[in-house]
């Protein structure tokens, strides 16, 4: 009886690993720093992680469909660069932003076309795309950050609404709702789960597997570009070097949240928790504890690996049950 309960608790713990990781981090910080649990700090935490949350929601779409798009980080930086570059060349803000989003969509479409219709390994294809994008971004900017001359552009991310500068958080909430709705309440979303769960079964069930998966990549691309525009607006600059590790860390965070790397399993809320942990709580906590930024990188990697190892442990237990 007792043994049963312990097992139950253990399985809950491993299933809710991201939540648990957040709680542990919070406890550790709470004992060491008084400034952590302030409203100000919470806002900071959400604001800093918001852009990555948004891009991570896009990544979730692709991951659920059994794909992976590692070019999202570079897509983000180049789209931001493109928006700033166009504005500095007298293109109106709205048009520049639209162009950036379309650019992101095209990048996603190319990824999707090669992966889905040419049946290639998404990991390599999107990594190759990412490298090309990095080069493209550096070509446009001469490898230097370019500053947005039109200061109105900064209002997208930093504008004042209801007396608060929380635009990024509003954007995150909207994108959370939109992507969650798509995955959960539309046939397109359900098709993606089926495709990621079992490609052949989905095809035999009359689902247009190729088109659906293709659009998942396109969406992910557009959302990455949206993240890029928000990032450029936040800092007032376009910088080709922003997204070097972004793709990897976002995907790790999404998997930490509980979306399966193998596809078919996952959700936006789960991803959100993983992303908040990695980009918000963990980074903020380490800043509060004055951990050196290189040590932070080391720690982030180790913690991500540990949490995912825990997951594999819990799944091993599930397998034994059958």
């Amino acid at each position, binding site marked *: 009886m007792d043994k049963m309960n312990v097992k139950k608790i253990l399985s809950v713990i491993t299933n809710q690993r991201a939540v648990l990781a957040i709680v542990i981090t919070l406890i550790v910080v709470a004992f060491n720093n008084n400034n952590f649990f302030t409203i100000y700090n919470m806002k900071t935490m959400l604001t800093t992680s918001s852009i990555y949350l948004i891009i991570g929601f896009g990544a979730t779409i692709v991951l659920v469909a059994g794909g992976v798009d590692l070019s999202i980080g570079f897509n983000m930086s180049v789209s931001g660069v493109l928006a700033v570059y166009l504005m500095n060349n007298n293109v109106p803000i709205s048009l520049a932003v639209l162009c950036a989003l379309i650019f992101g969509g095209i990048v996603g479409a190319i990824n999707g076309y090669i992966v889905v219709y040419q049946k290639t390994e998404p990991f390599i294809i999107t990594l190759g795309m990412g490298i090309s994008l990095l080069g493209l971004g550096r070509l446009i900017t001469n490898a230097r950050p370019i500053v947005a001359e039109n200061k109105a552009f900064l209002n997208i991310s930093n504008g004042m609404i209801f007396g608060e500068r929380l635009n990024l958080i509003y954007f995150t909430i909207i994108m959370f709702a939109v992507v969650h709705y798509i995955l959960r*309440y539309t046939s397109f979303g*359900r098709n993606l789960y089926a495709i990621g769960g*079992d490609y052949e079964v989905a095809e035999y069930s009359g689902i247009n597997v190729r088109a659906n998966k293709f659009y998942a990549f396109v969406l992910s691309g557009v959302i990455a570009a949206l993240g890029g525009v928000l990032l450029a607006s936040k800092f007032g600059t376009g910088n080709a070097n922003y997204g070097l590790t972004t793709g990897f860390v976002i995907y790790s965070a999404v998997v930490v949240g509980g979306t399966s790397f193998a596809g078919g399993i996952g959700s936006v809320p789960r991803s959100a928790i993983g992303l908040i942990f990695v980009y918000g709580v963990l980074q903020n906590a380490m800043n509060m504890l004055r951990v050196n930024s290189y040590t932070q990188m080391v720690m982030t990697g180790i913690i991500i690996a540990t949490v995912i190892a825990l997951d594999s442990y819990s799944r091993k237990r599930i397998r034994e049950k059958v």
Partner: protein
Amino acid sequence: MDNKNNNIILSIQDVEKSFPGVKALDQVSIEIERGEVHGLVGENGAGKSTLMKILSGVLKKDAGTIIFDGAVVHHTSPVESQRMGMSIIYQELNLVHTMSVGENVFLGRFKEMGGMRGTHTKAKTLLDSIGANLDTYQLVDELSVSEKQMVEIAKALSFESKLIIMDEPSSSLTQDEMDKLIAVIKQLKEKGITIIYISHKLDEIFELCNRVTIMRDGHVIDTQLTTDITRNEMIAKMVGRTIENEFPERPKCDGEVLLEVKSLNTHKLKNVSFELRKGEILGFVGLVGAGRTEIVRAIFGADQVKGHEILIDGKVVKIKNPKDAMNAGLALVTEDRKQQGLVLSFTVEKNVSMASLDRLSKFGILNKSKEKDMAQRQVKGLNVKTPTILTKVSSLSGGNQQKVVLGGWLETGPRVLILDEPTRGIDVGAKYEIYLLMKEIAESGGAIILISSELPEVLNMSNRVLTVYEGRITGEFDPLKTTPDHIMRNALGMGEEEQNNDQAN
């Protein structure tokens, strides 16, 4: 007394095992005699697999004792049980597909075998000893299921196993391959090797086994000499009730032509043409690999085919992919339900609705309450045993999984239902329910194409039987007016010989 103990190679005493919410094994006791072939039968979920997993060390027992060859067994891993002389050949064979036959036989023991050359020589000797003529350098991936089984048996022999457990070895074999397996089992028996033979096919149990143990709901119901029990008694003990007939009466069929397939040609198929009438069950008989599956895949648009013609109600329809096929009123329940029929990470509900999402949504937005109704309707109608519709299909038994697949297709309102091995690995009770369902579909104006390796199933369910051999249709028969032998001969490509002989006479 001593003598008696010596006669028992494996003694399972009061073994118990519980999973959360289920008692999988309750005071299970079985004694296996040295050198016998011991059958183990029971419906899915009876506890056979759990017992085997405990024997192999994959699962730990909660209580009880296991004595193997005079020693109490405490092992905790498959490797240890193998070293003790107990090997299990699982239904899903455990071979590394990217490695050669020889490497698989001695996996992890190349050094002890004297390097790769020694490995291949010794593997060849072992394979020859069971009459399996295989090239040890061939990749396992290129072998047929029955050849892979031979490799597994050779592997078991390489451990000098005294006991080999075979978990449904025949489920994907053709009759011909089955005969080979029977021969090998008889050879093993002569060598003094004990075999536990798990199967749903009772004919095999009677043919191969000295004794048989029947399990139901985690209990051992009975152990009998196979000469002391009849087939019907065995079935009654398995299901806990008497089943009058294994098959319902076949549907009456006198309708007009519903589906017409004309000159289907692929690299494997040669000029396949046939008709299907309303209310008919049309059976396809042939060896695995004869082209039965290819025929239905081609019709369903799963494989690319050119130059053929498909007519439904006399009108030509273009089928380029499974979606077109569905729109034309076809449904395909594939041979391998785990690989091609179900998304295992999905709930029962989502699997049922998967092929009907278009109909369940408006402007791409899913109507969840309609979806729920649909799943509940099928679960109730097909008597699917599942805690709720939100249970994952992966936790259901084979029979219930198959019902979920069928339920999903029934919701698409198919006019032609194609069933490829619909009862493979399914227990007797669930089989009967599926047969009844087939009859119901046929009688309500639909039609069914039935592919099955179990000859009795095809012959008892079909109105008409077509034999397929090497991608051609070699004969058309009325199963009521033909002997099974005659049909089988045509499926083996020997029908033409016969005709020639007849003409000569």
